[in-house]
């Protein structure tokens, strides 16, 4: 059989016959042709499109045991086709993945949960050992790193914390004013804003901001260091990356987080004051009401939470960074997962605290 091609055989050409035309010609019945020859005299221009067509024809010839006449092709396409067909298709290169049954999928899922859990405990164990060495004065790290991280996650976060806390106080006050105003108890927005900020919102909002800001930064920094082998470089010097990189970050965030939460307590109260004064309350009324409503117990509830939240953000950020894979895509995953797991853990912890403090009547 001789195949005569003509015209433009380029990827941009408007209409090109598909290789199935040949297949159909073969399948029409009758005896199969013994050889497939080509006549490309009338082909005015060609590129990859022609070669892919020829390769399909070649593959098809191989399955039907028709001999493919390379010599009938002009030199250019012939050489390319030779190159493409000289190494036979390598079978079994990809790992063989049979279709998974539902039970297998559950098994795989359970297994991944198990390895994940082991990874978490290993990291926590490493951190505990590192803190053990820290408290016995044996940990090797640089205090300059701690100060620097404190600046990054503490002082540098003040503007965003100020904004969020102020608006939070504002929002709470407005929500309170809707109901309390009806009963003439506008003064009680001081109680609402004060208690909500101190007990709940300050720690929570600081946690969310810090998780998105600092937790993500920890994960991205450590993940990138892992990808660029900077962590390996520390290891080959006999230095522990947990002590050098994780310890300073954890110490810094653990110390800075409660301070930020305390700061946002007061900024939130100030936000409430602005709303209260705009509705006719005086400064002294508001302040007096606030002092009588918020006692030290309420403050300590918020402070205990903020220590724990700080730890959660630091641990999830550093852990996801250290567990990062070796590609740039995994840095993205590590960052996302640091924020998601950080916020999730905080909300869960908050719920546990709610139960505990309720039981303790705090």
């Amino acid at each position, binding site marked *: 059989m001789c195949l005569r091609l003509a015209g433009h055989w380029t990827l941009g050409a408007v209409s090109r016959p598909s290789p199935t035309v040949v297949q159909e010609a073969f399948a029409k019945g009758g005896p199969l042709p013994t050889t497939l020859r080509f006549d490309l005299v009338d082909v005015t221009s060609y590129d990859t499109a022609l070669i892919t067509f020829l390769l399909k024809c070649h593959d098809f010839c191989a399955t039907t045991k028709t001999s493919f006449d390379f010599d009938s092709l002009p030199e250019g396409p012939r050489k390319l086709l*030779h*190159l493409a067909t*000289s*190494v036979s298709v*390598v079978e*079994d*290169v990809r790992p063989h993945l049979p279709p998974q049954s539902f039970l297998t999928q559950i098994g795989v899922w359970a297994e991944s949960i198990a390895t994940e859990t082991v990874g978490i405990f290993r990291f926590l164990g490493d951190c505990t050992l590192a803190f053990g060495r820290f408290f016995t004065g044996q940990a*090797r790290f640089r205090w300059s790193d701690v100060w620097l991280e404190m600046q990054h996650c503490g002082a540098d976060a003040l503007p965003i914390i100020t904004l969020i806390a102020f608006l939070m106080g504002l929002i709470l006050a407005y929500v309170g004013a809707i109901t309390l105003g009806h009963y003439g108890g506008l003064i009680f927005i001081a109680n609402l804003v004060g208690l909500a900020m101190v007990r709940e919102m300050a720690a929570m909002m600081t946690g969310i901001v810090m998780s998105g800001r600092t937790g993500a930064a920890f994960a991205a920094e450590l993940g*990138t*260091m892992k990808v*660029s*082998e*900077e962590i*390996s*470089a520390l*290891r*080959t*010097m*006999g*230095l522990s990356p947990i002590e050098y990189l994780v310890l300073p970050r954890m110490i810094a965030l653990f110390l800075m987080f409660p301070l930020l939460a305390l700061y946002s307590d007061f900024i939130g109260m100030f936000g409430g004051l602005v709303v209260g004064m705009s509705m006719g309350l005086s400064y002294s009324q508001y302040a007096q009401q606030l002092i009588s409503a918020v006692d030290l117990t309420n403050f300590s509830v918020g402070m205990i939470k903020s220590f724990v939240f700080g730890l959660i953000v630091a641990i999830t950020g550093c852990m996801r960074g250290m567990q990062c894979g070796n590609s740039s895509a995994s840095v993205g995953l590590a960052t996302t997962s640091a924020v998601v797991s950080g916020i999730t853990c905080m909300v869960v912890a908050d719920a546990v605290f709610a139960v505990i403090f309720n039981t303790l009547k705090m």
Partner: protein
Amino acid sequence: MSTTETIPHIEVRNLSMAYGDYIVMRDLSFDIHRGEIFVIMGGSGCGKSTLLRHLTGLLHPAAGQIFYDGVEFTGADDKDRNHMLRKFGVMFQGGALWSSLTLAENVAFPLEEFTDLPKEIIQETVELKLALVGLRGYEEFYPSEISGGMCKRASLARAMALDPDFLFFDEPSAGLDPVSARRLDELILQLRDSLGTTVVVVTHELASIFAIADRAIYLDVATRTMGGLGHPADLRTQSTNENLRLFLNRGMSGSQGPHDPATGSPFASTAVPQQR
């Protein structure tokens, strides 16, 4: 240098390397002598860098042991291990400089951590080490501000900071222009000659291999074990391993052309994963 010692400087015994169930190389056994430049060579993906990561303690062997001066490295506890690691200098493929530190701080880091030298001495040492790799004047640059080749050289300066007994190089000349690559080869030779450092180099650059290697080990991806050990010039002509001869002759085996005669393809069958 004395090569008559009874205890080899580095001894690798029956080392098998694996990622999970996937075995990279098995049963590697070789010695490296003091003051030797030892090249680990092989095709892409054969496990050269993996072997280096085992030698530097970043990966744990699936089986076998590694000894430094007769002391077991692979089974040592953290304290002994860290002590041994102090004698190592490692230059990573991409440089692996700490990106938050300047070049000077990078080179000074090991000196500050492991010595009690006063600041001025450290600063002078840093200047010298950077000058040795041709980076004098770049002390205050951050790794992100210089080219990849300069990062590699700075990384070498950091690896040399403590005058280590063992220097490990992962693909030192990859990504360098021919002149810089040649300079680096000469630097490696000079380091060995002047300080007696034992150098282990992972590379597949033939020019480098023939220029610097005292001995070389070939990791054969087809058999997943050692394909040859000896001086590269001897291996090129005398090795019984076909893949090794092809490798050292840039794919040309004796009188045959550059193409695999069986298939007519320049991509000879060595590039194709073997059936296992």
